[in-house]
């Protein structure tokens, strides 16, 4: 039943994983500067965490990278491509996959239908070719569906393919969301609070999964996460934001000792403060 994940996905070498360079990006809402000249680089094949207190600009940063919010200034380079200079719907085809904090799944559609949405940029065909079920369109549809199913197996939701996504448990919906992001065949995967709302054992499973994704697919992962245990356990590098500015950018051990970071989190029980927004 299980195709091994390694066989199911193209080996890391065939995916040309490039660094993601965030260069001096600023985002402005009215008079408020939500992101103020933030820079950092996600090195190829690493897990890079973006942390900071509430309102620090983490989600804004994600939304800027995925072009949901317009940039006031700065560049977002994935290899040679400036993500800020292409239309928002083109970044998926440049290799950016994103999972959402609040599970932006189409609840009424099946799991496989949701994950197939990730193949949107990789497939062709408009209303007419699907309406007449053109043989080449159907053939490509089947091929991509099989690949989507493999990805679901890899994420452990392969047994739910034909159930409506909205009927799955919260944890499984999270996995479907990540499966959809991976269906884009990204070179960089953005995960927005993958462990939010999970208990300790689920969180441990999730960090295992994130590491598996990096190791099996060889892609870079940028994640926003409040669970410090998870972040410090799996991240290769951590960028800390506070009030829209970059506070620190280093390996986890160094960040944990950084006095500025400690001050930003007010030294104490920062996890609790984070979990009650």
């Amino acid at each position: 039943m299980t195709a091994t994940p390694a066989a199911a996905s193209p080996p890391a070498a065939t995916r040309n994983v490039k660094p993601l360079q965030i260069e001096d990006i600023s985002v402005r809402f009215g008079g408020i500067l939500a992101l103020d000249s933030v820079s950092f680089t996600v090195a190829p094949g690493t897990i890079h965490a973006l942390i900071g207190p509430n309102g620090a600009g983490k989600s804004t940063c994600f939304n800027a990278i995925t072009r949901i919010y317009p940039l006031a200034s700065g560049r977002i380079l994935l290899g040679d491509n400036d993500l800020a200079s292409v239309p928002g719907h083109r970044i998926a085809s440049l290799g950016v996959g994103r999972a959402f904090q609040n599970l932006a799944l189409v609840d009424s559609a099946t799991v496989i239908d949701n994950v197939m949405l990730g193949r949107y940029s990789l497939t062709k065909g408009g209303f007419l070719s699907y309406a007449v079920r053109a043989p080449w369109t159907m053939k490509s549809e089947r091929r991509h569906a099989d690949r989507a199913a493999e990805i679901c197996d890899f994420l452990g939701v392969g047994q739910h393919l034909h159930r409506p996504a909205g009927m799955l448990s919260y944890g499984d919906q999270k996995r479907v969301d990540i499966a959809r992001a991976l269906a884009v065949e990204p070179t960089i995967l953005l995960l927005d609070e993958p462990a939010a709302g999970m208990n300790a054992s689920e969180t441990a499973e999730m960090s295992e999964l994130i590491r598996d994704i990096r190791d099996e697919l060889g892609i870079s992962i940028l994640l926003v996460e409040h669970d410090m245990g998870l972040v410090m356990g799996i991240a290769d590098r951590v960028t800390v934001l506070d009030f829209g500015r970059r506070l620190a950018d280093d390996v986890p051990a160094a960040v944990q000792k950084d006095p500025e970071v400690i001050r930003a989190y007010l030294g104490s029980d920062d996890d609790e403060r984070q979990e009650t927004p």
Partner: protein
Amino acid sequence: MSTFLQVIVNGLGQGAVFALLALGFVIIYKATETINFAHGSLVLIGGYVAFAVKPHLGWLVAALVGVLVAAIAGLLIERVLLAHSRNASPDSLAILTIGVDVIILTEVTRRLGTAAAPFLGDPYDNKAMQLLGLTVSRTYVVALVVAAILIGLFFLAFRYTSWGLEMRAQSENREASALMGIRSWRVTASAWAVGGALAGIAVLFLATNDIGGGSGLLSSHTVAFAAFPAAIIGGLTSPGGSVVGGLVVGLANAIAAQYVSLDFANVAVYLVMLVVLLARPAGLFGKVEQLRV
């Protein structure tokens, strides 16, 4: 020149009636986030009841009864139907009001049958008067004065009474105001009642020869349609905008009718709306929704 001034007075008079309708529409939208497609039916039901009791009670009492019935009809739509469809999205509720509209429109039209066209403007309809050297229809002037008073009263209430405060709080943030103990059903229900009452007043001017044309009450449902573009032009979330929208619609209608053709007047209203929406997708004074992820 005097023709132009006459057109302006006519436009403002009509616009004042549309402003009453659009204002009610916006109040309802602010309180429930629901577009009330049955607004034309509130007009119709108030007008029908007023018409039915007029021979027995006289014009003034009949008019009051009509306004009251329209207010109660609005209240009932909210309390009986909307309040019991909690799981439906605002767009679904808007479609529900279309269903209500179909029922009321069908039933009132059936009751009116093919009898002579009913009119409601006894004290002012078909009576010309002199104003600053112009000959204008009295309906327009009365409508303008009545609307100005009512709209003024509304904004005073909206600004200075606790009802107005609750209303504003609720439309700012439904969840927060629920937490602060503002009983949201009271605000919602009263919004529908006020919207209904304003529709009941508007029909007293719509079901006339001067504004509604030859078929009186029968055409008031269609004429009241112009309240939608009026509210949209102003921006659905802005009571002040709805008044501006109403006047814009009234003027566009009157100017197009005078200088292009009567047939074009209806279209002109919608063309103005399209132009406004192209420039400002949330209307002139509407709040732009931030795209949420």
